[in-house]
Structures are given as structure tokens and as C-alpha cells.
């Protein structure tokens, strides 16, 4: 009984796995810088998936439901990412901060993998067998896909 309750405790205290968000194309920029102001502040980090959310909703004029299907996440999650993206951009504008685009929790719509042992990301090669991490030779690799 005690072991069972410990097990339950372990499950409930573990954070949920963060699903990866699919993006069609990474942003074509590495960042944006304000000019005509004084002092340097820490940059705002805009994740790829946040950029993608802004693009789908505000540039391609999709509604949240359509956009969430494209990114392989639920509508509610999309709304949260989108909200976060808008807050970050607003913060950057008001506080004259740089915007940097960082990888975040996205994956490109291609054959990319992540090694769970050393944390490196890599794409597959048609020539080699792709069952292990090319760097640490660990077999604990996971495809960056949702389907």
C-alpha cells in the first residue's frame, strides 16, 4: 500500500511532457534591434513556435482552430503560445528591448531527431542508418514529430 501511494506521488509530481510544436519554416531573421534609444537591456527571446503562431494568426489570417491543427497542438495550447508571443513583442516594443529568435520547443517539418542523452538535435542522412545519436552513440533518440 505504501509503495503504491509512493508511486502515485511520483506520477502526480512529474511535469507533463511538453509536446513539440510543428513549424513550417523557421523565421528568416535572428533578431530585431531597436534604434535611437539609450542603454542596453536584456533581449526578449521569441521562440520559433511563437513566431509561427503570430505568422499563422496575424499574417496568414487563420483562426486559432485552423492554426492549431497546422502546428499539431490543441486550440487552447495555440492560444496560450499566441498570447505569450504577443506579450513578448509588446514588451520588446515598450521597453525597447531586442527580439531574438530562439529554437524553443519546435521542430521543423522534416526528419529531425533529438538525443535524450546529450540533448543534441540532428537530422537524418539518407546514407547512414539512423538508430543512434551521431555524437554520443546513445540509442535514446526521439523523433521530433507528433504523429
Amino acid at each position: 500500500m505504501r509503495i503504491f501511494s509512493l508511486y502515485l506521488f511520483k506520477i502526480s509530481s512529474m511535469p507533463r511532457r511538453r509536446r513539440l510544436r510543428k513549424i513550417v519554416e523557421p523565421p528568416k531573421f535572428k533578431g530585431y534591434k531597436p534604434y535611437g534609444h539609450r542603454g542596453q537591456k536584456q533581449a526578449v527571446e521569441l521562440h520559433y513556435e511563437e513566431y509561427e503562431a503570430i505568422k499563422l494568426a496575424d499574417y496568414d489570417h487563420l483562426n486559432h482552430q485552423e492554426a492549431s491543427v497546422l502546428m499539431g497542438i490543441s486550440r487552447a495550447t495555440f492560444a496560450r503560445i499566441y498570447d505569450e508571443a504577443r506579450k513578448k513583442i509588446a514588451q520588446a516594443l515598450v521597453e525597447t528591448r531586442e527580439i531574438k529568435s530562439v529554437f524553443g520547443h519546435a521542430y521543423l517539418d522534416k526528419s529531425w531527431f533529438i538525443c535524450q542523452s546529450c540533448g543534441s538535435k540532428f537530422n537524418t542522412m539518407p546514407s547512414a542508418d539512423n538508430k543512434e545519436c551521431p555524437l554520443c552513440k546513445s540509442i535514446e533518440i526521439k523523433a521530433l514529430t507528433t504523429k
Partner: protein
Amino acid sequence: MKTLITSTGNSIEAEMDMRFGRALWFCINDSKTKTHSFIKNPYANLRGGVGKEVLNFIIQNEIQQIISGDFGANVRSNLENRGVQMIIIQDSKPIEEIINQLNK
């Protein structure tokens, strides 16, 4: 297999360079012969079109694998089409550590 690692210096104690095209040095490791050599990146200070020049360099040297911190969008799709494997490491490491892993 020939692997290119972007480096900040010309010795194995140097940290890897998180940039790809504008990395200061390239370390080329051959896992077959277990040898490595350092080449200064001639395009590090070029104004534009660095990615293209480095791509040519990679094709000429028959490199099959690249380890860096990030790859630009153009370079990414180009390397993908040519079947060159990209490995992204998010935290910088000394070159020695990477070479040891590759030659294992």
C-alpha cells in the same frame, strides 16, 4: 566519416563556436583515421553571402557531418538537399570532448 566542427580557436582545448558561417576556425575530424586538422575560416569577416562560400568549402572537402550551435535557414535547406548531416549542440563544449565522442 569527415566531420566539421566550428571552433573559436585552433587547438582542441578551444570551445566550439556557436556560429556556423562566421565561426573563426573549422576543425575537420576524420573518424576513420582518427585525425583532425584546424583550418582558419577565410570567410569569417565577409560582408554577405558567407553561408554560400562555406557551403562550397564543405562540398570541396567532402564533409558529411557538421557540428555547430545553429544553422541559418538557407544553409539548412541546402545541406539537407546535399545529404550533409547537421548536429546542433545548444551548450558550447571544448572541441576535445566532441572529438573524443566522435572517435569512440
